[in-house]
């Protein structure tokens, strides 16, 4: 290898012309200018659309999408474009178009160099800043979704009166669902994927740093429309908002549609970036058999997001079109089909479960090797499991539609494919158990979460196999049993995995230890509450209680009371855990570079991680799980004397 080309410092390379001060237009943009610009453009778009709106006539009086739809649609478009304009997202494409390429100083400014904490509120390209932005955004979304969950359980627990108007209750249900789905999709891939993965593979940054910032700020743009929909009629039809309810709902539905459309762009961009980074920017020597398993999890999740998210996006683009342009994709009276919506929706809607679960599970595998001091049990089986799930995830969607009447003859093939996916998914649990088996477990908070997740995943997985059976689904479909099942997967497996991942990488992300005493109290309180809340919900479902109802038979009272007590317990545990995160981040005990004596590359860089991660790019000579040697520290040889490379050898 030519060391001159690999390690040439950018500042030594001939630089293009510097236009103005480094950073250019981005020096003047931040979250405030973005938000103000978004609000102003939203208001202008709303008013202009109102002025251009044709007056009602006899011809269009009976058309379904009447009212304020065009105005609110324009408002949401205005908000999104305005925010991106005001935060500076279009600066890069414009400069590229004009040929005003970035200098190294420009790039450093955009990465946040010398801007202190303010860089977290700007269009900053450094992957570590973006990772932390994602972390805070995930926690905020989990807080909002969790508060809505408490409200749902309050209504269902107070069985002797109505706490909310039925419409309000339905809106709370729908908003809770969508907020939590977004939060869960980003909670591991966003913070850990952005912050840790580039360092883990020995890269200086992501492949496309500006796209990285764009993916976060698109997410930022996507959230307000969703929350605003609560005040514009709400999402009253569950998180999946099937057609024709979608087209007939109040204007708040446009907020939901905007959120998904924008969020899908964000996810697609993030997926392109993560895959490209991992495929093309791995350190020398990091062959595919030496790539940490967490990185495989991120690839698997990104591949699914890349292929299936656009379909989900189009389910909403076409729904938006039906409302605003009065097209007929989903209106049966004019040749549309509601099944088309369900197909497009579930083509991502189900793989999305794996988009959520796979990175978390891969993170658990990663950290289990560290805390058990053993190599990963059957690394290849784990990879097969991840890509088996990725492959089969595309042919299981219609199990959500067994009872809709869409293609009854397809029910059994979909039943088989759904049951088939439990095999690669089972591999992942087996790999976890095999890694723990006969290991000397170092029981720290992340490892506790592994036990919790294995239990939750087994319960969620087995009940999922039951529900995938057409005859069982005929009875359990639409019941609280389904709700309990998917909460065991999406919360019990995925959220607890995220807690483990955050606790494990917390010292690297913040330079401080997470307070494990308080964190563990919060964790176990939440875990106990979770079992009570959703365990009871299984019984309500088995008794026949339908989901998404405000009023129900007295026979279901007991299980609902228990569920509500469990939910409040989860709430208390979560708040305690959140407290541990915030206080530890602000003033926790300082962590050394490698507090867990782990062997992946992210633990070879100092805290706080320097702007470009590595002074010299590392060279990997063995796989990342050579634990079991007498002294794990002795196994790390950092040949820092070599100016061209930092050798990380683990044997």
């Amino acid at each position, binding site marked *: 290898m030519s060391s001159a080309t690999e390690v040439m410092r950018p500042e030594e390379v001939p630089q293009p012309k510097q236009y103005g001060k480094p950073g250019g237009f981005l020096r003047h943009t931040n979250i405030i200018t973005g938000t103000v610009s978004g609000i102003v453009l939203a208001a202008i778009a709303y008013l202009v659309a109102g002025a251009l709106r044709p007056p009602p006539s006899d011809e269009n009086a009976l058309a379904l999408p009447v009212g304020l739809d065009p105005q609110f649609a324009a408002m949401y478009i205005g908000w999104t474009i305005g925010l991106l304009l005001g935060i500076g997202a279009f600066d890069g494409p414009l400069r590229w178009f004009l040929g005003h390429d970035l200098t190294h100083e420009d790039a450093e400014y955009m990465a946040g160099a010398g801007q202190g904490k303010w860089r977290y509120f700007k269009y900053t390209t450094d992957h570590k800043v973006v990772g932390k932005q994602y972390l805070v955004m995930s926690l905020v979304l989990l807080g909002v979704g969790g508060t809505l969950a408490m409200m749902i359980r309050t209504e269902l627990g107070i069985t002797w009166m109505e706490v*909310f108007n039925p419409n309000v209750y339905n809106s709370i249900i729908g908003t809770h669902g969508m907020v939590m789905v977004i939060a869960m999709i980003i909670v591991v891939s966003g913070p850990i994927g952005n912050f840790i993965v580039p360092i883990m593979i020995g890269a200086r940054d992501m492949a496309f740093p500006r796209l990285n910032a764009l993916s976060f700020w698109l997410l930022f743009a996507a959230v307000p429309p969703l929350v605003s929909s609560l005040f514009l*009629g709400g999402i009253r039809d569950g998180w999946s908002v099937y057609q024709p309810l979608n087209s007939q*709902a109040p204007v708040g539905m446009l907020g939901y549609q905007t959120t998904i459309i924008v969020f899908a762009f964000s996810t697609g961009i993030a997926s392109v970036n993560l895959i490209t980074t991992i495929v093309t920017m791995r350190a020398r020597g990091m062959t595919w058999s030496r790539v940490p398993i967490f990185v495989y999890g991120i690839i698997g999740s990104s591949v699914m997001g890349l292929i299936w998210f656009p379909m989900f996006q189009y389910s909403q683009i076409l729904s938006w079109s039906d409302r605003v342009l009065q097209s007929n994709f989903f209106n049966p009276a004019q040749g549309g089909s509601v099944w088309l919506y369900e197909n497009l929706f579930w083509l991502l809607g189900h793989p999305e479960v794996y988009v959520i679960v796979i990175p978390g599970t891969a993170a658990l595998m990663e950290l289990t090797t560290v805390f058990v001091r053993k190599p990963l049990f059957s690394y290849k089986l784990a990879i097969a499991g991840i890509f088996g799930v990725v492959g089969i995830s595309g042919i299981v969607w219609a199990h959500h539609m067994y009872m809709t009447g869409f293609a009854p003859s397809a029910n059994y093939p979909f039943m088989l494919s759904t049951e088939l996916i439990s095999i690669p998914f089972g591999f992942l649990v087996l790999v976890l158990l095999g890694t723990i088996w006969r290991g000397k477990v170092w029981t720290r908070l992340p490892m506790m979460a592994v036990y919790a997740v294995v239990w939750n995943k087994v319960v969620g997985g087995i009940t999922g196999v039951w529900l995938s059976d057409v005859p069982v689904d005929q009875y359990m479909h639409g019941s609280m049993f389904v709700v309990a099942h998917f909460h065991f997967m999406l919360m019990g497996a995925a959220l607890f995995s995220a807690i483990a991942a955050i606790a494990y990488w917390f010292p690297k992300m913040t330079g401080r230890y997470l307070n494990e005493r308080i964190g563990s109290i919060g964790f176990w309180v939440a875990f106990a509450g979770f079992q009570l809340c959703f365990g009871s919900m299984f019984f309500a479902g088995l008794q026949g209680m339908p989901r998404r109802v405000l009023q129900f*038979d*007295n026979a279901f009272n007991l299980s609902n009371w228990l569920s509500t007590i469990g939910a409040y317990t989860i*709430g208390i545990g979560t708040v*305690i855990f*959140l407290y541990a995160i915030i206080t530890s981040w602000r003033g926790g005990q300082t962590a050394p570079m490698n507090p867990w004596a782990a062997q992946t590359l992210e633990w070879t860089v100092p805290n706080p991680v320097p702007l470009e991660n590595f002074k010299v790019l590392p060279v990997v000579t063995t796989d990342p799980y050579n634990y079991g040697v007498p002294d794990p520290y002795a196994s790390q040889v950092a040949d820092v004397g070599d100016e061209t490379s930092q050798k990380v050898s683990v044997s």
Partner: protein
Amino acid sequence: MKRALFTVLSVVIGVLVVGGSVALFSAGAQEPDPIAAKVVGKAKTPQGELPHAELDLSIYPNSSPAVPPPAVSDRLAQSESESQQWPFYTPSTNLELPAHSLVTIRITQYDSGGQIYNPYLAKVVGTVDGSATYDGEKKTGIDPNTVGHTFTIHQFPESTQPYLYVNIPVPMNGANAPTDANGYPKDPHVIEFSFITGEPGQYIWNCEFPCGTGYVFFGGPMQQRGWMSGTVTVV
């Protein structure tokens, strides 16, 4: 100790956030002020002599300066201009009826209508003799193609509720009926019917005709409490 205190404080803050959110959104659950049936005397019924109570309701196709819309607070309601075009029952949809009584309700109907999806709902069900009086004429049902609205009392799902089910189809006014200055028919239909209440209990009632907006006309006023649906409390 300090940490424990702050941990508890965090939980308290969490409780306040959830409690505040519940309070904010539960404000929308308010029903309009109740209207009680007036006991006017005693009446002979198949169940013997019972107290006799009466209640007057009207159905308007939209609000106007002369007829204000329902005074309900719903944070998720549509814009005011849209809801001005919604039909509604007035003076209230929150009804209080005496227990173990003969209740007579008079509905004055000013709205138009059309075909009801389920013809069963064009039949009179649950009244004392299975009939109702339409503009002075006794009937057991009306033409399913000329329904304006219905007044339909349902059980709450709770299994301990005393049984009560009443369905009264309300006929439509013709499109060419002469109207007053506010656009309401000058000669509205008047429907009178009587039923017997049992033990005290909570019920809901609603219109079953698709007279709303969206959701194939079960949205808008059909979704909002205070317009085409409400509660019946037997006290």
